[in-house]
């Protein structure tokens, strides 16, 4: 028999009405696509010099515009971007799920896995239907949202979308970006672990994508984005964020803080992680997968990717060294959770910076990552007494904010020629770097991100609370969400 409970009806109603809302908003400013570029010539018709320049550009991620030959997907770049995409997917499934899952009690581990899986599947569908277009489309010609032209992946073929990459198939680019849209909301639920209903989660994320993620991602990475300093000549805030310090970590971290405050503390007191080996595996897979996240954000297998690869490694290793070293000095013992936390913090803080700083910058970032989030998780949290279960705010919120700001300080234009490209010159980014004033734009971008995340989360959380409620009953919390929300137990005999 079909069981339709009231809460399920409310959930569906909530989702449906928000879908409406999203669709309405998203078509409001729909305009025609920008005028097409002049017709390119066929490779075979181009002069030999142009052909060769084109081929060299193809394998080194150069700019083919002068050759007037239409760029095509090139094996080396496509290969790297497919790998990067599957690596970032692996960060969520199983990486983050294990990292978080190991830290909760055994009676709640499945609820973590279900949240990661539920978000992955739902966000994929939204992304295909409207999300990709709202972020990377252009026909709104708006600094705040993309366009409608790629709804339902219309026009998302194996040819490149040259607004974002000359040599990578657009369908791979779309999936690569999907994996970011998946992991971002999944990060939030570390802060609310062990006391948020699965149905509430799904409704929350549905709304959050439209209200927080899509606008923010467009502002930072969209070709017409408000804060896209590197690629949008008209960016009002010429900030830089290589792989998502604001879009991914700050947005999720600050939303996590607000949501955990709204939820209140857990019923049962603090507890030990149920399986630190699981958390360790998750950490290791996050690190490995993060190369797709960071070096993949070059959207090419070029020198910028190579630099991001290097800086990611160093910052993570130094973070993983510093955090337990601090523990060893102040607490007497270096812990495995300290190693894991330091590595993740290093990854978080280097994220916005990885394609813009050199190896020395990366080491400095690693040290900061081992200290500041450590203090946030141990001292700040105790002072303010919020129950950030798995320290999402402490690591992603604080770490992301540190990363956004420090990128403005440590930026080294010699590692990334795009920092001096035409758009950067036009919108003032290049000058800000020479003047050492980039940190101002970074602070503005960080501030805007915090406002959007906080306001968005407050609104959505109260709507969801009203419609279907956020917390399970106290009984259910005692019994564990695995049985009450999913009717399963993780471990049997």
């Amino acid at each position, binding site marked *: 028999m079909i069981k339709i409970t009231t809460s399920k009806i409310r959930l569906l109603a909530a989702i449906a009405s928000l879908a409406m809302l999203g669709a309405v908003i998203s078509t409001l400013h729909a305009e025609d696509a920008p005028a097409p570029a002049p017709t390119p010539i066929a490779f075979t018709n181009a002069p030999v010099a142009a052909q060769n320049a084109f081929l060299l550009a193809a394998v080194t991620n150069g700019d083919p515009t002068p050759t007037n030959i239409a760029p095509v997907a090139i094996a080396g770049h496509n290969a790297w971007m497919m790998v990067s995409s599957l690596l970032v997917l692996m960060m969520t499934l199983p990486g983050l799920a294990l990292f978080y899952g190991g830290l909760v009690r055994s009676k709640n581990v499945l609820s973590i896995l279900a949240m990661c899986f539920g978000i992955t599947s739902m966000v994929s569908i939204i992304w295909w239907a409207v999300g990709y277009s709202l972020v990377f489309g252009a026909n709104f010609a708006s600094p705040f949202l993309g366009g409608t032209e790629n709804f339902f992946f219309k026009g998302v073929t194996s040819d490149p979308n040259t607004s974002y990459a000359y040599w990578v198939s657009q369908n791979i680019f779309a999936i690569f970006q999907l994996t970011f849209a998946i992991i971002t909301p999944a990060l939030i639920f570390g802060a609310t672990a062990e006391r948020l209903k699965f149905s509430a989660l799904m409704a929350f994320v549905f709304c959050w994508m439209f209200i927080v993620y899509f606008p923010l991602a467009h502002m930072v990475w969209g070709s017409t984005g408000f804060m896209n300093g590197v690629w949008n000549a008209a960016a009002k805030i010429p900030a830089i964020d290589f792989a998502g310090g604001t879009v991914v970590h700050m947005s999720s971290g600050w939303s996590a803080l607000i949501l955990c405050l709204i939820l209140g503390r857990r019923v049962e007191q603090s*507890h030990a992680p149920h399986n630190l080996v699981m958390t360790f595996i998750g950490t290791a897979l996050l690190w490995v997968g993060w190369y797709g996240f960071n070096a993949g954000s070059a959207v090419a297998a070029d020198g910028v990717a190579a630099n991001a690869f290097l800086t990611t490694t160093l910052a993570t290793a130094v973070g993983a060294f510093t955090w337990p070293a601090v523990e060893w000095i102040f*607490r007497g013992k270096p812990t495995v*959770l300290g190693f894991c936390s330091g590595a993740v913090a290093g990854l978080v803080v280097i994220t916005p910076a990885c394609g813009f700083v050199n190896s020395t910058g990366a080491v400095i970032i690693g040290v900061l990552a081992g200290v500041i989030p450590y203090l946030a998780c*141990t*001292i700040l*949290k105790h002072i303010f007494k919020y129950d950030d279960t798995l320290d999402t705010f*402490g690591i992603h919120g604080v770490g992301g904010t540190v990363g956004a700001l420090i990128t403005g300080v440590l930026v080294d234009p010699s590692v990334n020629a795009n920092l001096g490209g035409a758009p950067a010159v036009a919108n003032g980014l290049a000058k800000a770097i020479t003047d050492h004033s980039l940190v101002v734009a970074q602070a503005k971008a960080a501030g805007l991100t915090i406002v959007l995340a906080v306001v968005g989360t407050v609104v959505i959380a109260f709507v969801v609370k009203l419609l279907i409620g956020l917390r399970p009953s106290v009984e259910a919390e005692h019994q564990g969400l695995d049985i009450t929300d999913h009717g399963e137990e993780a471990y049997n005999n």
Partner: protein
Amino acid sequence: MKKIEAIIKPFKLEEVKDALSELGIEGMTVTEVKGFGRQKGHTEIYRGSEYTVDFLPKIKLEIVVADGAVEGAVAAIVKTAKTGKIGDGKVFVLPVENAIRIRTDETGDKAV
């Protein structure tokens, strides 16, 4: 018949088992338990949260023996399980009214 319940340190299990076997005791049942007692636990710190571990891993041995064998068994356990350090554990002796071997339906002392 009596049941001897011994709470011992886990790494002593093999030794105790061997000592009992030498006495001709052929059966026992073992459970992993957590013990709380004079032996101090320790504090574990997971990021910011302290977590006090009062319950330490112990092994509980249950052995049902005929009345005459109690003394020897208890002595053997105490001797082999002793390290002299706090937390070595306890031995309790409880009365048993009957025992049945499921396989053969034997009862009483023959069943153990």
